[in-house]
């Protein structure tokens, strides 16, 4: 049985903000199914009482000294942006104006 359907992959692509083509959906559905069936092997391990590891370095609350340091200038920060207006990042519309 397939671990993941073509419709589920289409849903994942939407969540991932990837405007994939129909042909890509066919390819990815098959490939992701193979990968998911292989990685599902982690479920064979009895680990109910095992704490999870998110990170190998046991450091917490790492903060720097609370002093003013140099940071990027506005020009530097905006220099790589695809579109800039009035010294700000310009983005396409976020809200539907007809709504």
């Amino acid at each position: 049985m397939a671990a993941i359907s073509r419709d589920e992959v289409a849903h994942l692509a939407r969540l991932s903000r990837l405007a994939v083509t129909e042909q890509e959906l066919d390819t990815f559905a098959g490939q992701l199914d193979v990968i998911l069936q292989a990685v599902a092997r982690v479920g064979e391990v009895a680990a109910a009482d095992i704490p999870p590891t998110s990170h190998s370095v046991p450091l917490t609350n790492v903060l720097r000294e609370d002093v003013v340091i140099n940071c990027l200038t506005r020009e530097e920060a905006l220099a790589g942006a695809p579109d800039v207006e009035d010294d700000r990042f310009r983005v396409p519309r976020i809200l539907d104006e007809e709504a």
Partner: protein
Amino acid sequence: MSDLTRMTAAELAGTIAKGDASAEEVTRAHLDRIAAVDGKVHAFLHVDADGAINAARKVDAKRAAGDELGPLAGVPVAVKDVLTTRGVPTTAGSKILEGWRPPYDSTVVERLRDAGTVILGKTNMDEFAMGSSTEYSAYGPTNNPWDLGRIPGGSGGGSAAAIAAYEAPLAIGTDTGGSIRQPGAVTGTVGSKPTYGGTSRYGLIAFSSSLDTPGPCARTVLDAALLHEVMAGHDWRDSTSIPQAVPPVVEAARLGMTGDLTGVKLGVVTEFNGEGAEPGVLAAFHDALAALTKLGAEVVEVSAPHFQYALPAYYLIAPSECSSNLARFDGVRFGLRVGDDGNRSLEEVMSLTREAGFGPEVKRRIMLGTYALSSGYYDAYYGQAQKVRTLITQDFNAAFEQVDVLVSPTTPFVAFPFGSRTSDPYQMYLADLFTIPTNLYGGPGISVPCGLSEGLPVGFQIMAPTMADDRMYRVAAALESAVGTLTPPSLEG
């Protein structure tokens, strides 16, 4: 002056310090070499000739003024294109960052500059460091100097190929699941992944933040150790950077070069024995074990029962972190924007941009990670993988109570022909079968050449406890003293 490109980094530093050659001459020799052979190898995505010459001249001026020079002053180095370089194009092998010039240097690059090394340019890689062959680079693959029809490993195939082809004596790589060690193995060079947190991730374009580790690539173990010392150490700008002194890796490499391993215990992992590895790779590995035994090392078999689940756990954890990290490529602050016609919404433009800017492997991993993190699947996939990660760490801790280091082949197979593993992505993942456990544990691992199989290099991997990087350099240098270094066929003519 072409013999300058054949020298080790240690020799070049000595040559420059004595005044037998200037840093500029050394740099020009390597730029000439790049011009002569990179058309065949394609190790570089960007060569910064002007920046390199300027950096070299600064070293020469310092020497002329009688200032003290660092141990690698004037030595050229190639940098994987996933580390930011101020004002110099940085793409991470992706179309989505084509033309981007970062406004800041990564910590690793800053330390390279402070040490007086000369940055030659940026090396090719699988897109966002996801892959084992450079075939997923958006700018075309790098060709292995040993056989131009075969892969140089990945993701850091450009860095490994650059040093194998004598285009640079040193290079920087990054290792998330084997991206320094596996390219080292298949190009006959040394590739070292330091302890996670031992080298800074600041300015390293993130793939999997709990695993990504910058490290050195070189043609000798001593050179790798010298570069390791220059690039490593605590960095307040990386919250996972370990606030401890750098392990004495150069001293350990020099100790290993004496060829004495009396009293050193090497652990061979039972669960790695033979599984999935080519016969020629296993033969070279066992020959190397015999050579190490002759140097006085004791070989012990140790069990690590959860290592067999490392690959599945990794391919849940790394894609999960990747799906989150790569959300920053939204067509707003840097890089590509596609489809912004004044009518489309931000979300539509974002989706079109990411579709156009990302290649197939990156898309697969983003979707895989999105799946593993989604409600309903989180506990069974990502949560369970994190628990398996704990068990793998416990396996390492138990093993290191019995032995000083663990050893294995670096990768199950020698350099494979282009196109042989791209249609089935999981076949590509198997290249990192032996390197991934160390990443999940967070300890250091190094690949050192140990011989040939079918005329192609085989790598020997040494894994050490966290922050005991020096141990693996000692064993690696001893092995190198016994089996020698490898020289690829000539690229001329």
